[in-house]
């Protein structure tokens, strides 16, 4: 606040003798706005400018997850909205346009604004109208902007937020890559993964019980081909925001330690941080160096949200393993403890040897889409799993075994979940798979036929009728998945 106080007094003096905002003399420039996960290039100017920002509100249908449609309210057509970058001391002329096909009035409260409502009252805009206001970017830092029209929670819950970065007059050191990631919670009538158009659920929102918690507006926005990218040796800066509306994020990147975190988007860095809290309506800037290759997983470490509600992103780093930093698995042998366990030999047979049954002609596209929506967040895009957490489905001896010999168990795994120690391809897992709900018989048949015939797996196709029978059997059998041994 010290700097801004002195700025305020000089500003006040200026105002006393000159007309408001001696801005006419400033050079005028139009801000470059970017879609997530991109960030506009650093500002290289060394003096203030008048910056023109034009943001359009668009209400539109998008995908909350594969096959799940949702009517988003957006700043610029994406969630989060366009990234805005200005420089400390700039005068910002801000235009808010509300597209004429929109149903609702909207406005914007930029946390970077000093002044009542952060611009909300000045930008209250009916559909088919535009409004303008001007502010001076007094305080540097990373700020959330959001809609503040009543009922405000619903406007935010539908995606109306984004980040504005007020770059300090002395900019942060240059890095190789900058990315833009914002977490948000969503409240739908149907549960996670329920297909088709999903309406906003006011009850869930008030209960703070989201069906989705995602990065950049959809489950899968940062996975597969859309993963963030990097190379060994590079430095990365993430501009992280949390739109909320309700949840506070425990932001973490699996396998990285943040060299620096500008907590809450402020000016002073903390060093060597594992997990940083990002408040709803707040931000953080995190920086790290890419020391060795692999896939690094961005999560909200309030971890059920990641496993069950979608808050999972990826950064794929290429450029070779740095054995000094991380060796990979050096050893895996049996450990008997003090009591000899009967079978000390951990089998590791190739999956193809398991099943010789006639294989199905799977409806691959539909199967894949069901897999992506219901299973991939844990078992990963190509069934490879995540060591130590999620067993692989690809070439899984466990899967092949039950898909051929105990089909009831496979259906039960999906419908009732699974917990307790299991061994998959010689590795032990002891996790919790939560039940996957909302799949009809036909979809489940397509999905299970797909997974049991993909990635080196082989088993007969599941028919709708078979699933129906197995489902009835699963549902009438009393206990859920086997509970862990005590």
């Amino acid at each position, binding site marked *: 606040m010290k700097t801004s106080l002195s700025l305020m007094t000089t500003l006040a003096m200026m105002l006393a003798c000159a007309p408001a905002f001696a801005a006419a003399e400033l050079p005028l420039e139009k801000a470059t706005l970017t879609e997530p996960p991109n960030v506009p290039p650093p500002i290289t100017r060394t003096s203030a400018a008048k910056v023109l920002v034009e943001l359009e509100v668009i*209400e*539109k*249908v998008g995908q909350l997850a594969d096959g799940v449609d*949702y*009517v988003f309210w957006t700043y610029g057509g994406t969630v989060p909205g366009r990234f805005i970058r200005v420089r400390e001391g700039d005068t910002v002329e801000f235009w808010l346009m509300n597209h*004429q*096909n*929109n*149903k*609702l*009035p909207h*406005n914007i*409260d930029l946390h970077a604004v000093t002044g*009542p*409502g952060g611009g*909300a*009252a000045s930008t*209250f*805009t*009916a*559909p*088919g*109208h535009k409004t303008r206001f001007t502010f001076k970017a007094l305080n540097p830092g990373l700020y959330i902007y959001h809609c*503040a*029209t*009543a*009922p*405000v929670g*619903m406007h935010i819950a539908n995606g109306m937020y984004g980040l504005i970065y007020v770059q300090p007059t002395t900019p942060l050191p240059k890095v190789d890559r900058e990315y833009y990631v914002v977490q948000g919670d969503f409240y739908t009538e149907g549960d996670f993964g329920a297909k088709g*158009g*999903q*309406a*906003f*659920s*006011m*009850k869930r929102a*008030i209960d703070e019980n989201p069906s989705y918690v995602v990065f950049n507006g959809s489950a899968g926005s940062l996975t597969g081909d859309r993963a963030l990218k990097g190379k060994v040796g590079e430095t990365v800066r993430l501009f992280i925001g949390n739109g909320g509306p309700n949840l506070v994020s425990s932001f973490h990147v699996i396998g990285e330690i943040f060299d620096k975190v500008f907590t809450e988007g402020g000016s002073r860095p903390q060093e060597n941080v594992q997990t940083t809290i990002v408040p709803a309506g707040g931000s953080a800037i995190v920086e790290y160096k890419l020391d060795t290759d692999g896939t690094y997983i961005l999560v909200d470490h309030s971890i059920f949200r990641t496993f069950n509600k979608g808050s999972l992103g990826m950064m794929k780093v290429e450029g070779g393993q740095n054995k000094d930093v991380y060796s990979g698995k050096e050893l895996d042998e049996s450990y008997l403890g003090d009591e000899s366990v009967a079978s000390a030999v951990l089998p590791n047979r190739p999956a193809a040897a398991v099943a010789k049954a006639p294989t199905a002609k799977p409806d691959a596209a539909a199967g894949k889409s069901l897999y992506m929506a219901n299973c991939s967040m844990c078992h990963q895009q190509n069934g490879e799993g995540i060591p130590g957490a999620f067993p692989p489905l690809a070439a899984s001896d466990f899967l092949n075994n039950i898909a051929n010999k105990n089909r009831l168990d496979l259906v039960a795994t999906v419908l009732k979940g699974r917990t307790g120690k299991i061994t998959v391809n010689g590795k032990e897992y002891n996790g919790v798979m939560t039940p996957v709900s909302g799949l009809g018989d036909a979809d489940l048949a397509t999905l299970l036929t797909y997974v049991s015939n993909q990635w080196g797996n082989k088993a007969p196709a599941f028919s709708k009728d078979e699933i129906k029978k197995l489902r009835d059997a699963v549902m009438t059998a009393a206990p859920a998945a086997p509970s862990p041994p005590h």
Partner: protein
Amino acid sequence: MWILAALSLVIAADRPVRVAIPAGRFAPLFGLDTGQRDFAVSAFAIDARLVSNAEFAAFLRARPDLGKGRISSALADECYLSHWEGATLPPGSSAAPVVSVSWFAAQAYCEWRGARLPSTLEWEYVAAASETDRDASRDPAFVARILGWYSRPTGKDLPGESHRNVYGVYDLHQRVWEWTLDFNGAFNTADNRQDGDKIAGMFCGGGAIGSARREDYAAFMRYALRGSLSARSTLASLGFRCAASTTETR
């Protein structure tokens, strides 16, 4: 002539123009004083249906000064009747509710018919009714259904006459927004944004202060929308219907 007369008779029989609404008491989302529980609403009558394109076109024949391209810019913004092709209706749209009309034009239409726009209190009073209940404003299923409109992509609205409430009034929700007489409190034709405090009530937590039902999100949206308008505003999703005090009609 004979055919025409017969036709208009059928229309009249088929479409009861105005429905009588009995007097009662009602707590709108905003406007109650501290300690006040509700307002008395006098008996009035309200159109069973939204004013249609065809009806509005007939009015413009009587009031060419309010026609598209003719109306003074003080009385309507540039998007006035923007869905019409010139002065004519797009094919197949005669029965659809007229939208993109300003408050001035809507009120002039109602006056032409010896009526007026409904007050916000009257409108909210009638619109609180579901198919079976006069006041369903606290019924979660009813509120959720209205909210559903916002979860439907623009342009995929319900066909006409989807919901008839217990009074016999159609489509108060889920089709278009509707003008009210006092849409922004004390309207002086000017920029409603000058009334800072009232509008501030529409933002952030402010919206919840002084509201009668914090969970009536649909009503919050209506008040917010009305607050964003000025009397010359037109929206592609904003239409109207007329009302009259029961004593006036007699």
